[in-house]
Protein backbone atom coordinates (compact mmCIF):
# COMPACT_ATOMS: atom_id res chain seq x y z
CA UNK A 1 0.00 0.00 0.00
CA UNK A 2 2.56 2.54 1.15
CA UNK A 3 4.94 1.80 -1.69
CA UNK A 4 2.04 2.29 -4.08
CA UNK A 5 1.64 5.71 -2.50
CA UNK A 6 5.33 6.47 -2.95
CA UNK A 7 5.24 5.11 -6.48
CA UNK A 8 2.18 7.05 -7.59
CA UNK A 9 2.97 10.19 -5.62
CA UNK A 10 2.92 12.56 -8.64
CA UNK A 11 -0.61 11.49 -9.52
CA UNK A 12 -1.75 11.99 -5.93
CA UNK A 13 -0.04 15.41 -5.89
CA UNK A 14 -2.10 16.44 -8.91
CA UNK A 15 -5.25 15.34 -7.10
CA UNK A 16 -4.28 17.34 -4.02
CA UNK A 17 -3.68 20.41 -6.18
CA UNK A 18 -7.13 19.93 -7.67
CA UNK A 19 -8.50 19.80 -4.12
CA UNK A 20 -6.86 23.15 -3.40
CA UNK A 21 -8.39 24.66 -6.50
CA UNK A 22 -11.86 23.39 -5.62
CA UNK A 23 -11.41 24.65 -2.05
CA UNK A 24 -10.71 28.16 -3.34
CA UNK A 25 -13.68 28.00 -5.69
CA UNK A 26 -15.98 26.91 -2.87
CA UNK A 27 -14.89 29.04 0.07
CA UNK A 28 -13.36 32.23 -1.35
CA UNK A 29 -15.84 34.98 -2.19
CA UNK A 30 -13.39 37.29 -3.93
CA UNK A 31 -13.86 37.25 -7.69
CA UNK A 32 -10.12 37.51 -8.38
CA UNK A 33 -9.53 34.56 -6.07
CA UNK A 34 -12.13 32.62 -8.05
CA UNK A 35 -10.07 33.24 -11.18
CA UNK A 36 -7.02 32.00 -9.29
CA UNK A 37 -8.92 28.88 -8.27
CA UNK A 38 -9.80 28.09 -11.87
CA UNK A 39 -6.17 28.59 -12.90
CA UNK A 40 -4.98 26.27 -10.14
CA UNK A 41 -7.55 23.69 -11.21
CA UNK A 42 -6.29 23.76 -14.79
CA UNK A 43 -2.69 23.59 -13.56
CA UNK A 44 -3.55 20.46 -11.61
CA UNK A 45 -5.03 18.88 -14.73
CA UNK A 46 -1.91 19.88 -16.68
CA UNK A 47 0.33 18.33 -14.02
CA UNK A 48 -1.74 15.15 -14.12
CA UNK A 49 -1.51 14.97 -17.91
CA UNK A 50 2.23 15.51 -18.07
CA UNK A 51 2.74 13.01 -15.26
CA UNK A 52 0.84 10.38 -17.22
CA UNK A 53 3.27 10.65 -20.09
CA UNK A 54 6.46 10.10 -18.11
CA UNK A 55 8.54 7.01 -18.72
CA UNK A 56 11.29 6.14 -16.25
CA UNK A 57 14.53 7.54 -17.66
CA UNK A 58 12.79 8.92 -20.73
CA UNK A 59 14.15 11.77 -22.86
CA UNK A 60 12.32 14.64 -24.50
CA UNK A 61 10.56 13.55 -27.71
CA UNK A 62 12.76 15.61 -30.03
CA UNK A 63 15.12 13.89 -32.46
CA UNK A 64 17.43 16.86 -32.96
CA UNK A 65 20.77 15.73 -31.44
CA UNK A 66 18.83 13.31 -29.29
CA UNK A 67 20.77 11.04 -26.92
CA UNK A 68 20.02 7.33 -26.89
CA UNK A 69 17.04 6.36 -24.77
CA UNK A 70 13.31 5.89 -24.52
CA UNK A 71 11.20 8.95 -25.34
CA UNK A 72 8.39 10.16 -23.10
CA UNK A 73 4.89 10.20 -24.56
CA UNK A 74 4.34 13.21 -26.86
CA UNK A 75 0.53 13.23 -27.09
CA UNK A 76 -0.03 14.27 -23.47
CA UNK A 77 2.41 17.13 -23.97
CA UNK A 78 0.38 18.32 -26.94
CA UNK A 79 -2.80 18.09 -24.87
CA UNK A 80 -1.13 20.03 -22.07
CA UNK A 81 -0.08 22.76 -24.51
CA UNK A 82 -3.66 23.03 -25.70
CA UNK A 83 -4.98 23.18 -22.17
CA UNK A 84 -2.47 25.87 -21.16
CA UNK A 85 -3.57 28.14 -23.98
CA UNK A 86 -7.22 27.51 -23.17
CA UNK A 87 -6.56 28.41 -19.52
CA UNK A 88 -4.89 31.66 -20.57
CA UNK A 89 -7.83 32.55 -22.79
CA UNK A 90 -10.37 31.72 -20.10
CA UNK A 91 -8.66 33.77 -17.41
CA UNK A 92 -8.31 36.75 -19.75
CA UNK A 93 -12.04 36.71 -20.47
CA UNK A 94 -13.00 36.21 -16.83
CA UNK A 95 -10.76 39.08 -15.74
CA UNK A 96 -12.35 41.43 -18.25
CA UNK A 97 -15.78 40.45 -16.95
CA UNK A 98 -14.59 41.00 -13.37
CA UNK A 99 -13.44 44.51 -14.29
CA UNK A 100 -16.86 45.28 -15.76
CA UNK A 101 -18.64 43.89 -12.70
CA UNK A 102 -16.45 46.01 -10.45
CA UNK A 103 -17.22 49.11 -12.55
CA UNK A 104 -20.94 48.42 -12.23
CA UNK A 105 -21.33 47.32 -8.61
CA UNK A 106 -18.18 48.67 -6.95
CA UNK A 107 -17.61 45.37 -5.19
CA UNK A 108 -15.43 42.31 -5.78
CA UNK A 109 -17.39 40.09 -3.39
CA UNK A 110 -19.40 37.40 -5.16
CA UNK A 111 -22.17 37.85 -2.58
CA UNK A 112 -22.31 41.65 -2.48
CA UNK A 113 -21.97 42.07 -6.25
CA UNK A 114 -24.73 39.67 -7.26
CA UNK A 115 -27.96 41.08 -8.61
CA UNK A 116 -29.93 37.94 -9.53
CA UNK A 117 -31.21 35.34 -7.12
CA UNK A 118 -34.23 33.08 -6.69
Amino acid at each position, binding site marked *: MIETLIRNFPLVAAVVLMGIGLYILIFKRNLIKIVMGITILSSSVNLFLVTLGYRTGGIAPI*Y*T*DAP*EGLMVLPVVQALTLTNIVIA*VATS*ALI*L*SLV*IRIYRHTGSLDSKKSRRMKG
Partner: protein
Amino acid sequence: MSKIVRTVANQLMLFVLVFGLYVIMHGHVTPGGGFQGGAVIASGVVMLIVAFGSGQIKKSLRERRLSLVESSGALLFILVAFAGIGTVFFYNFLVGSRIFGGIPPTGSNPGDVWTGGVIPLMNLGVGLKVIAGLSAAVLALALFSSGEEME
Protein backbone atom coordinates in the same frame (compact mmCIF):
# COMPACT_ATOMS: atom_id res chain seq x y z
CA MET B 1 8.81 54.61 -15.37
CA SER B 2 12.22 56.20 -15.28
CA LYS B 3 14.32 57.03 -18.34
CA ILE B 4 16.71 54.12 -17.69
CA VAL B 5 13.89 51.62 -17.74
CA ARG B 6 12.51 53.03 -20.98
CA THR B 7 15.87 52.97 -22.74
CA VAL B 8 16.68 49.44 -21.60
CA ALA B 9 13.23 48.24 -22.60
CA ASN B 10 13.65 49.83 -25.99
CA GLN B 11 16.95 48.06 -26.58
CA LEU B 12 15.70 44.79 -25.11
CA MET B 13 12.63 44.66 -27.34
CA LEU B 14 14.83 43.97 -30.39
CA PHE B 15 16.34 40.85 -28.82
CA VAL B 16 12.90 39.74 -27.63
CA LEU B 17 11.60 39.99 -31.18
CA VAL B 18 14.56 38.08 -32.62
CA PHE B 19 14.31 35.34 -30.03
CA GLY B 20 10.57 35.03 -30.44
CA LEU B 21 10.83 34.76 -34.22
CA TYR B 22 13.58 32.16 -33.80
CA VAL B 23 11.37 30.11 -31.49
CA ILE B 24 8.47 30.37 -33.92
CA MET B 25 10.39 29.42 -37.04
CA HIS B 26 12.35 26.57 -35.45
CA GLY B 27 9.30 25.04 -33.81
CA HIS B 28 9.52 21.84 -35.86
CA VAL B 29 13.19 21.25 -35.12
CA THR B 30 13.80 22.39 -31.57
CA PRO B 31 11.53 22.88 -28.55
CA GLY B 32 9.09 25.70 -29.09
CA GLY B 33 6.55 26.67 -31.68
CA GLY B 34 4.00 29.27 -32.58
CA PHE B 35 2.37 29.60 -29.20
CA GLN B 36 5.59 29.75 -27.25
CA GLY B 37 7.27 32.27 -29.53
CA GLY B 38 4.13 34.35 -29.71
CA ALA B 39 3.94 34.37 -25.94
CA VAL B 40 7.58 35.54 -25.80
CA ILE B 41 6.92 38.51 -28.10
CA ALA B 42 3.64 39.32 -26.36
CA SER B 43 5.48 39.43 -23.05
CA GLY B 44 7.88 41.86 -24.72
CA VAL B 45 4.91 44.03 -25.58
CA VAL B 46 3.80 43.78 -21.96
CA MET B 47 7.27 44.98 -20.95
CA LEU B 48 6.84 48.01 -23.22
CA ILE B 49 3.42 48.70 -21.72
CA VAL B 50 4.92 48.59 -18.23
CA ALA B 51 7.77 50.85 -19.25
CA PHE B 52 5.95 53.47 -21.31
CA GLY B 53 2.38 53.24 -20.02
CA SER B 54 -0.58 51.99 -21.97
CA GLY B 55 -1.56 55.39 -23.32
CA GLN B 56 1.81 55.70 -25.06
CA ILE B 57 1.64 52.20 -26.58
CA LYS B 58 -1.94 52.80 -27.73
CA LYS B 59 -0.71 55.46 -30.16
CA SER B 60 1.58 52.99 -31.98
CA LEU B 61 -0.44 49.76 -31.59
CA ARG B 62 -3.88 50.49 -32.98
CA GLU B 63 -6.58 47.93 -32.13
CA ARG B 64 -7.64 47.88 -35.79
CA ARG B 65 -4.17 46.81 -36.88
CA LEU B 66 -3.91 44.21 -34.15
CA SER B 67 -7.18 42.54 -35.07
CA LEU B 68 -6.14 42.69 -38.73
CA VAL B 69 -2.92 40.80 -37.95
CA GLU B 70 -4.76 38.36 -35.72
CA SER B 71 -7.39 37.54 -38.32
CA SER B 72 -4.75 37.16 -41.02
CA GLY B 73 -2.76 34.76 -38.85
CA ALA B 74 -5.84 32.66 -38.16
CA LEU B 75 -6.70 32.78 -41.86
CA LEU B 76 -3.21 31.60 -42.81
CA PHE B 77 -3.56 28.68 -40.44
CA ILE B 78 -6.98 27.54 -41.60
CA LEU B 79 -6.18 28.13 -45.28
CA VAL B 80 -3.09 25.94 -45.03
CA ALA B 81 -5.36 23.32 -43.50
CA PHE B 82 -7.88 23.82 -46.31
CA ALA B 83 -5.14 23.49 -48.94
CA GLY B 84 -4.82 19.82 -48.08
CA ILE B 85 -8.47 19.12 -48.78
CA GLY B 86 -7.53 17.81 -52.22
CA THR B 87 -6.61 14.71 -50.24
CA VAL B 88 -7.97 15.28 -46.74
CA PHE B 89 -8.43 18.34 -44.55
CA PHE B 90 -5.18 18.93 -42.60
CA TYR B 91 -3.25 16.62 -44.94
CA ASN B 92 0.46 17.44 -44.73
CA PHE B 93 0.73 17.95 -48.49
CA LEU B 94 4.11 19.71 -48.43
CA VAL B 95 6.19 16.74 -47.24
CA GLY B 96 8.47 15.76 -50.09
CA SER B 97 7.62 18.89 -52.10
CA ARG B 98 9.92 21.85 -52.79
CA ILE B 99 8.78 24.07 -49.91
CA PHE B 100 9.82 22.86 -46.45
CA GLY B 101 9.66 19.39 -47.99
CA GLY B 102 12.81 17.81 -46.61
CA ILE B 103 12.44 14.53 -44.74
CA PRO B 104 14.95 14.11 -41.90
CA PRO B 105 16.77 10.79 -41.53
CA THR B 106 15.08 8.51 -39.05
CA GLY B 107 16.64 8.61 -35.61
CA SER B 108 18.83 11.21 -33.97
CA ASN B 109 20.12 13.81 -36.44
CA PRO B 110 21.49 17.39 -36.30
CA GLY B 111 18.23 18.80 -37.59
CA ASP B 112 17.28 20.81 -40.69
CA VAL B 113 14.99 23.82 -40.85
CA TRP B 114 13.90 22.97 -44.40
CA THR B 115 11.66 20.11 -43.21
CA GLY B 116 8.26 19.67 -41.66
CA GLY B 117 5.93 20.37 -44.60
CA VAL B 118 3.07 22.56 -43.49
CA ILE B 119 4.20 22.67 -39.84
CA PRO B 120 6.41 25.80 -40.19
CA LEU B 121 3.66 27.64 -42.06
CA MET B 122 1.12 26.75 -39.37
CA ASN B 123 3.65 27.81 -36.72
CA LEU B 124 3.97 31.16 -38.45
CA GLY B 125 0.21 31.66 -38.64
CA VAL B 126 -0.33 30.69 -35.04
CA GLY B 127 2.61 32.87 -34.01
CA LEU B 128 1.19 35.96 -35.71
CA LYS B 129 -2.19 35.27 -34.20
CA VAL B 130 -0.84 34.79 -30.66
CA ILE B 131 1.33 37.93 -30.84
CA ALA B 132 -1.53 40.13 -31.98
CA GLY B 133 -4.15 38.46 -29.82
CA LEU B 134 -2.31 38.50 -26.51
CA SER B 135 -1.02 42.02 -27.09
CA ALA B 136 -4.53 43.26 -27.90
CA ALA B 137 -6.01 41.56 -24.85
CA VAL B 138 -3.36 42.86 -22.45
CA LEU B 139 -3.51 46.34 -23.97
CA ALA B 140 -7.29 46.43 -23.69
CA LEU B 141 -7.19 45.31 -20.06
CA ALA B 142 -4.48 47.84 -19.21
CA LEU B 143 -6.27 50.69 -20.98
CA PHE B 144 -9.65 49.93 -19.44
CA SER B 145 -8.33 49.54 -15.93
CA SER B 146 -6.38 52.78 -16.33
CA GLY B 147 -9.59 54.61 -17.19
CA GLU B 148 -9.27 55.36 -20.90
CA GLU B 149 -10.80 52.98 -23.43
CA MET B 150 -9.79 51.50 -26.76
CA GLU B 151 -11.35 53.03 -29.85
